């Protein structure tokens, strides 16, 4: 008995510290944000809400956000459900490659996608517009990206992977004999899809759709790059505008918008997890789950053309546009053979300002990933491997952070950590790192928890019985077993932190400008070539990260 006391202690201390850190950096700022939006000098006062929503521009931003997110949600589901079915359940040629491509668009930073589509479809010199004008002999550009339609288009292309991943995962999990039972009952493949597959998948479809809705509503990069030039405002861009005002009133108005967003986003996420835990029909059966592959027959090649067309438009076309633009000598001369060169690359890779930003973001990403992985390990261990009451509380706090829109987190951190409540880390690198941790730790906790739950408790007990301390047990037994998931968890924090824009844009200071912010500035100053060069560099680093991640986890986890 005596021997077990000290090891309980070290466990408790570690856990207590983790919980305190999470409470202080996640819950406390969000509470302060809510409090500040409702109280002025301790007096209940919601005049800011009335004033903010009394103004037409904010009201319009709200309706724009809801309208856009709804369109993007519905469009994403309509596009990805058949796509997930074709890729997962039919003899579509090349389905493995399509799967990779469709999932991969998830790792392209959204603002890079926005920049690409501005290059392709801006009304004056868009490549695609020019091409269509040329082909059909048109006088006017057929498309204008700077519209609600354009915004919905880009948002759909870059957030539909959320729906694709959720839906195709559920489709893989579903017992294929449920569909076969319908076929043998006399139902055609299409009718089976309608009568059995679709209803069984409904909870996952709704969940995927809601994820898209929240992501689209919380997005800043795409509306800032595509919407602003056309004077289309959404909630996130309004919040940023208010914060840029810099005075107390601006901040207070921003809090009113931010709290509204937070309530909607977290409410929807809560509903979604309830839906998935209570209505998930996609049960895994015992054996005999060999996937039944639907023969497409004469539809095989039309379906192939459809999916290939989508993959081309959604991923290949924008990436090509970015890469090609980065190698243009002069934007005004267009796509001529003598107009290609590395001229735009030279200033980027020789300028200290650019290089510093790149290294800085890599550095912040590494620091955030290291701290985050250690914390994730403790949180995951606590929730999966112990029986202490309240063991899943830290997990819940981390999920709360991840579920909160980035812009809301950034605002909460500004208010809380600029000295009014003790700690002042405003415009230091630490506020950026804290924001990354709050937002991105959840994926890493999930990954590590999943692998920890595979490690049987008896292994651990064996080590403890042979006299090892708890910390020692962690190091010698648990760590090596869950090492791949730890590496995966590390990258899952590093990569989105590295190219983060929304929070960095509000939190950076004179010496802490990150690569995302720099890229955003370049784009707003219409320096589209240097922006493309920087985008290519970001994409390369993300690609390398993903290749490593894929190797380490044997393809089980990727961004």
């Amino acid at each position: 008995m005596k021997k077990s006391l000290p090891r309980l202690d070290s466990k408790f201390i570690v856990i207590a510290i983790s919980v305190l850190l999470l409470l202080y950096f996640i819950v406390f700022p969000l509470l302060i944000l809510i409090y500040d939006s409702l109280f002025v000098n301790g007096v209940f006062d919601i005049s800011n809400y009335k004033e903010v929503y009394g103004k037409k521009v904010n009201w319009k931003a709200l309706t724009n956000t809801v309208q856009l997110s709804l369109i993007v949600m519905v469009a994403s589901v309509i596009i990805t459900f058949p796509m997930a079915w074709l890729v997962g359940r039919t003899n579509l040629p090349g389905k493995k490659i399509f799967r990779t491509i469709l999932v991969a668009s998830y790792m392209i930073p959204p603002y890079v996608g926005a920049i690409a589509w501005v290059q392709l479809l801006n009304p004056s010199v868009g490549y695609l517009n020019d091409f269509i004008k040329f082909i059909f002999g048109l006088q006017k550009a057929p498309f204008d990206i700077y519209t609600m339609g354009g915004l919905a288009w880009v948002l759909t292309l870059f957030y539909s992977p959320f729906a694709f991943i959720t839906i195709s995962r559920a489709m893989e999990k579903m017992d294929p004999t449920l569909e076969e039972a319908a076929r043998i009952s006399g139902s055609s493949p299409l009718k089976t899809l309608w009568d059995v597959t679709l209803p069984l998948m409904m909870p996952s479809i709704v969940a995927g759709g809601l994820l898209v809705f929240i992501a689209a509503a919380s997005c800043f990069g795409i509306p800032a790059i595509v919407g602003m030039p056309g004077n289309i405002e959404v909630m996130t861009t309004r919040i940023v505008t208010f914060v840029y005002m810099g005075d107390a009133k601006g901040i207070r108005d921003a809090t009113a918008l931010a709290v509204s967003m937070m309530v909607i986003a977290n409410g929807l996420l809560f509903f979604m997890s309830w839906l998935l835990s209570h209505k998930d029909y996609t049960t895994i059966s015992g054996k005999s789950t060999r996937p039944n592959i639907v023969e497409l027959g004469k539809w095989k090649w039309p379906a192939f053309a459809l999916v290939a067309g989508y993959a081309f438009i959604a991923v290949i076309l924008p990436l090509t546009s970015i890469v090609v633009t980065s190698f243009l000598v002069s934007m005004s001369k267009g796509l001529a053979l003598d107009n290609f060169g590395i001229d735009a690359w030279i200033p980027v890779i020789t300028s200290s300002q650019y290089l510093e930003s790149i290294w800085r973001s890599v550095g912040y990403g590494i620091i955030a990933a290291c701290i985050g992985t250690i914390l994730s390990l403790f949180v995951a261990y606590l929730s999966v491997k112990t029986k202490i009451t309240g063991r899943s509380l830290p997990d819940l706090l981390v999920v709360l952070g991840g579920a909160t829109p980035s812009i809301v987190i950034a605002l909460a951190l500004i208010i809380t950590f600029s000295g009014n409540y003790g700690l002042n880390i405003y415009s230091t690198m630490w506020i950026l790192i804290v924001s990354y941790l709050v937002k991105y730790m959840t994926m890493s906790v999930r990954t590590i928890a999943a692998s920890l739950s595979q490690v049987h408790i008896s292994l651990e007990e064996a080590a403890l019985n042979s006299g090892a301390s708890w910390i020692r047990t962690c190091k010698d037994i648990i760590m090596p077993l869950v090492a791949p998931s730890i590496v995966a968890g590390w990258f899952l924090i590093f990569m989105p932190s590295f190219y983060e824009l929304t929070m960095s844009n509000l939190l950076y200071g004179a010496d802490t400008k990150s690569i995302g912010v720099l890229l955003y500035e370049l784009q707003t100053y219409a320096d589209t070539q240097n922006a493309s060069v920087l985008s290519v560099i970001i994409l390369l680093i993300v690609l390398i990260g993903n290749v490593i991640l894929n190797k380490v986890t044997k393809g089980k986890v990727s961004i």
Partner: protein
Amino acid sequence: MAELKLSHIYKKFGKVVAVGDFNIDVADGEFISFLGPSGCGKTTTLRMIAGFDKPTEGIITIGDREVSNAEKGFFLAPEKRGIGMVFQSYAVWPHMNVVDNVGYPLKIQNVPKEERLKRVMNMLELVHLKEYAERFPNQLSGGQQQRVALARALVAQPGLLLLDEPLSNLDAKLRESMRFEISAIQKELGITVIYVTHDQSEAMTMSDRIVVMSMGKVQQIGKPYDIYTNPANQMVADFIGLVNFIPAIAKGDRIFMQGSENISFPNPKQIAGNAVLAVRPENITISKTGGMVEGVMHHRFYMGDSVDYRIKVKEQFIRVIQKGSDYTAYHNGDKVFLDFENVMSFENEG
């Protein structure tokens, strides 16, 4: 109702031959079991009959209709074959209640609602689930779900019913009672049944004929009694029931036990050279006084209604099971004599 005919059916997955040269003629109303060890191709064959897998070669005919002909590239989709099927995992749709599940095949056929309900209720009565009509699958036990699946497979009155290890997820007691229920329903409806199982007592008790399979090949097709008493080869003898194999050498009309040139048995199959004698444990008698073969009592297991002996004969252990034998009659180490009856002989397959 429906006959079923498979001729020269092959199924290859890449280089793996899952099923090789399967031939059978199933009569209308017959109950056929596919029996064999895991991975021998039972499910694959059943899925080819259902239309979920395409045969690489061969012709399948149901009733007087060709449903699959690899040579002509003809293949009828499962929904057009008019077959009932019960899956091992039940495959009862969780988003429909019992009535909707069972009524689905009729709904597809546009049977009017009233008639549909009547036929569904008749079916539920047959499987003893009438009181559960409004329930959802998550409110039913495994056995009840299995009966929903059975009712759904039968409701459209198919000529042919396929079952893939339908009882393997149920507990032993329920398995036994479901066995008789399925048999009774089959007799009542006069339907042709193909029943996949790797449980030999299931196959023995239910079937008119059994198809014993191994490594993708049909080893024997026959009535349960014939398969047990007259297995076609060593594999079948080994797989069905218990058996002792004794190495032997065939010379002319006799087969000699290896090492005991004075003990021999007839050679009806005219085997030449290396052979194997096979004798079931219940066909051996033990005595203290004398018999064909001498051995030493090595072990005895008391089973209640019988005693299971291991007797060492030369370098080999022979298993003997005697009903109502006196456990105390022998002791380990005793010298005993064995007499063999109904000795079977096979070519040595190694």
